[in-house]
């Protein structure tokens, strides 16, 4: 069900919307933080947060309130809140809008979050390339400090809170939370072994909560209206997926964009109502639902949920395009909601070129610690390259899934699954196309990732087409 909201986006596009004055005037800025710090205990904040049913916006969809409740005060060590604004997942472009257009919601969220988990310092880890984002966050922090919202006694309460922006160097793997912590500490950005989890041993060896930037950004809105009320805005409140979130639409749509919606729009609504329909009015072919790591869906797939207990049972036999999109419903479709930014592909897109494109990314970004990811990601690309060049054999095509199988689950961090899942997804859903590339050595030369004549992308941004030349 499509329900536009504007809790986070109210100040988007408003003149000086990123400033404290506009945030306070238009969006009751810092009222939530004031309410929380002046009238609630830490325990109350966590209990209330749980009611909001905010599922982590970073990709895994873990309930935010539950994560906060893992934080236990340590006898000697401070606690930290770390915001993940690395936003490196291909096809993901939502956190950036929040930092640029509404940085104060993030800072206010940090105050509530710090209070809730018992931290006095929040770090926002921003990918280096996002210069405007960093500038807007820094400016917002300065404004909040000047007003005393950040500092020794925010809103008169003797609970010091400060926020710092930390710059990454543009490595996708530094978005993985433990890798991010290493990077934050000045170490090589490689994921750590878990356990221990960040709530026990996080930044600088101290208890830490890592949340996505948007996860924290929406917190003030939830607390302002009451967390349960907030959760009920969602069509999926009943299955603990609450509130509103940023949905992104990109790829072969007429109007790529980021919008705020109550949780639970359908893919059809996102493509046609939000995205303005498929480029060149082509038939819809496939959708990557939440960033490159989430398995691709074919537009012609039907929901298979014969089990009455399945949250998707009521959609059994219907088009997957008509299922309200939330964390658990996406899982029910055999994929993931991920970062909630959908990549739309029109008919004519080559699945082999698409997979090659993604695999190039994973090969390039694997931190290289664990054998299956380091070597497997490279092998997947090699075979994709040969398929595109028309030199792959059937045996090599049949190697692809076994390589992905051997990566799956056998690595230190979820990057491994993030590589294997989309690979297996493309293979499972488009095997016939892959076979055609083996039989017909010209197939790769005709392969495309763009919609003829309609591309708004500069040609150089199209790796698949380049490889085909």
């Amino acid at each position, binding site marked *: 069900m499509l329900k536009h909201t504007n809790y986070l986006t109210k100040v988007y596009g408003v003149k000086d919307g990123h400033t404290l004055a506009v945030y306070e005037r238009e969006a009751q800025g810092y009222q939530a933080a004031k309410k929380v710090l002046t009238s609630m205990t830490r325990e109350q904040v966590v209990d209330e947060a749980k009611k909001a049913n905010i599922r982590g916006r970073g990709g895994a969809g873990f309930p935010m309130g539950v994560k906060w409740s893992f934080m236990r005060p340590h006898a000697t060590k401070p606690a930290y809140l770390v915001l993940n604004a690395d936003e490196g997942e291909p096809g993901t472009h939502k956190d950036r809008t929040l930092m640029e257009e509404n940085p104060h919601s993030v800072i206010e969220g940090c105050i509530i979050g710090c209070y809730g988990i018992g931290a006095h310092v929040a770090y926002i880890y921003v990918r280096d390339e996002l210069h405007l984002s960093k500038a807007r966050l820094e400016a917002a922090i300065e404004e909040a400090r000047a007003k005393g919202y950040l500092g020794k006694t925010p809103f008169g309460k003797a609970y010091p809170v400060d926020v710092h922006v930390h710059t990454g160097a543009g*490595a996708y*793997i530094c978005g993985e939370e433990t890798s991010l912590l290493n990077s934050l500490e000045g170490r*090589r950005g490689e994921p750590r*072994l878990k356990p221990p989890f960040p709530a026990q041993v996080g930044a600088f060896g101290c208890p830490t909560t890592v949340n996505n930037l948007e996860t924290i950004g929406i917190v003030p809105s939830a607390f302002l209206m009451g967390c349960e009320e907030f959760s009920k805005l969602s069509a999926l409140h009943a299955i603990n997926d609450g509130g509103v979130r940023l949905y992104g639409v990109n790829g072969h749509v007429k109007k790529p964009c980021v919008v705020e919606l109550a949780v639970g729009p359908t893919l059809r609504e996102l493509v046609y109502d939000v995205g303005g329909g498929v480029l060149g009015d082509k038939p819809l072919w496939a959708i990557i639902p939440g960033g490159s790591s989430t398995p691709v869906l074919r537009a012609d797939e039907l929901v298979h949920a014969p089990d009455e207990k399945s949250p998707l049972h009521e959609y059994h036999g219907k088009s997957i395009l008509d299922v309200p999109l939330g964390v658990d419903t996406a899982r029910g479709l*055999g994929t993931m909601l991920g970062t909630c930014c959908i990549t739309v592909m029109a008919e004519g897109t080559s699945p082999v070129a698409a997979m090659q494109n993604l695999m190039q990314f994973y*090969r*390039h*970004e*694997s*931190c*290289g*610690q*664990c*054998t*299956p990811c*380091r*070597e*497997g*990601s*490279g*092998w997947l690309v*090699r075979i994709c390259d*040969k398929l595109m060049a028309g030199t792959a054999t059937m*045996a090599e095509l*049949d*190697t692809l*899934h*076994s390589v*992905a*199988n*051997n990566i*799956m*689950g*056998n*690595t*230190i961090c979820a990057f491994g*699954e993030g590589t*294997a899942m989309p690979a*297996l997804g493309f*293979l*499972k859903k488009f*095997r016939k196309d892959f076979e055609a590339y083996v039989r017909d050595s010209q197939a790769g030369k005709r392969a495309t990732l763009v919609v003829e004549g309609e591309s708004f992308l500069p040609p150089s941004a199209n790796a698949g087409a380049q490889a085909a030349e």
Partner: protein
Amino acid sequence: MPTFKLDGKTIPFEAGDSIIRAAEKAGVEIPHYCYHAGLSSPANCRMCLVEILPAANQRAMMLDIVEWDEKLGDYKAVRKPKLQPSCQFMATEGQEVLAETSTHVIEARAGVQEFLLLNHPVDCPICDQAGECKLQDYWLEHQKTPKRMHDEPVHKPKAVSFGDTIVYDAERCVMCTRCIRFMDEVAKDPVLDMRERGNLKEVIVAPGRKLEGHYTLMTEHVCPVGALTSKDFRFKARVWFLKTAKTVCQGCATGCNAHFDYDPRSNKALRYRPRDNEAVNKYWMCDEGMLSYRDVTSNRVPGALVGGKPVKLDRALEDAKKRFGSVQKSSIAFVLSAKHSLEDNLALFELAELCASRALYVTGAPDGYSDDILIHADKNSNTAGVKNLAPEAKSFADLLADASAGKVTHVIALGGAAPTEEVTALGRLEGLVTIAAHEGPITGAAHVVLPAAAWIESSGTFVNAKGMRQLAEKGTEPLGASEPGWKLVGKLAVAIGVEPSWTTLKDVRSMLVATSVPPPEPPSAEASAE
């Protein structure tokens, strides 16, 4: 002791043991590259994955994968359990772990092994590691499939000099980080790290530095493959032709346990490797120690000497007889050596007894560099042994003083080493015979030198600074005319008219029992951390 089950076998463990460690202690090897008992566990190689059966009230975490169904002509969705690295996962009471008995584990191992060989040069014929390489061993044990990737492998730097001792080949490297962790955690000098990402990764030395210090050769030793090779050993031997003697390093009083590798065909010493002993050197040796296998040949006493000139042993003994035959036996002074085995020292000690002499002294090498890792300032391998044998023995300085004062005129010594180069006082002696393997101040001053076998050329016992009595096996055959020191003491005794109370090594050892020297250490449990 708590226990868990590995493939149905009961494995005991101590709190804090990982599954792989507990299995290792129970003599069951779980294949691994990155795990090393003496280092932290990064769990990066993924070779040690095992299946841990869920407890009764839990469900296994399952992962979606696919299989190719020939009949169907399509992929079939299947699931597999999430495996866990046994080097990271702690053993817990009653846990059931599957390794060899899990098809998922067998597949995962073969998968990891295939991944590791994917871009590997497989240049075994020119690789020093061949014959003791985990990649080779595990291919046979855990993979056994032909190569599926026939394209040009990824190329990376080869034969990179990391410093004076080590050469790195990035193409052979399996990125296990053992070398990096060794330098960081044991040598306390984090001079190695990784650069690049993914399959372009390589180990590097910190800019502006080289791999240096007292423990560089250990990086080669911990490397499970041929990525790091020692400049000293490169291209010198095929390891399968070598024989190994379990010995004790003579470099200092720590007494690191070592494997001494030599070529029996040419009687040539080739290298030392640490022999694991938790109580002494754990899994390590220092560079000086590692290279001291060369002492078999370097600085050796070339043969019997009289007045510095080479002679036959008989001639030398005759000369000794001339100098010592008519002297009152009880006036002869005896100099034990902290660099010689208990056997050699005991023989000399016994000779002193037979001569009814109370004039005992000790010599040995001067003190030197030390650290709080392994290296002891005392550069002698048997100081504690000699001290136990003859607590009343006087120092070498006393010997010099007594010689200058004319209190001592005739001396029978062990070894060439002395704590000082300044030994002119010895020039006043009327007779100085030494039984030595290596040249030193004492051999320089001696009238007669009898050529002793080096430590590795005869079995010997040494007591380290911790008071542990350790046995060193015989390796190479004695060079030239040299003979075990205790035997030469016997011949010398006969020459000066004393009937020795021993003829065989067994005799000497049985006399050792009667001394106050601590009893032998039980043979060290050898962990398989190599």
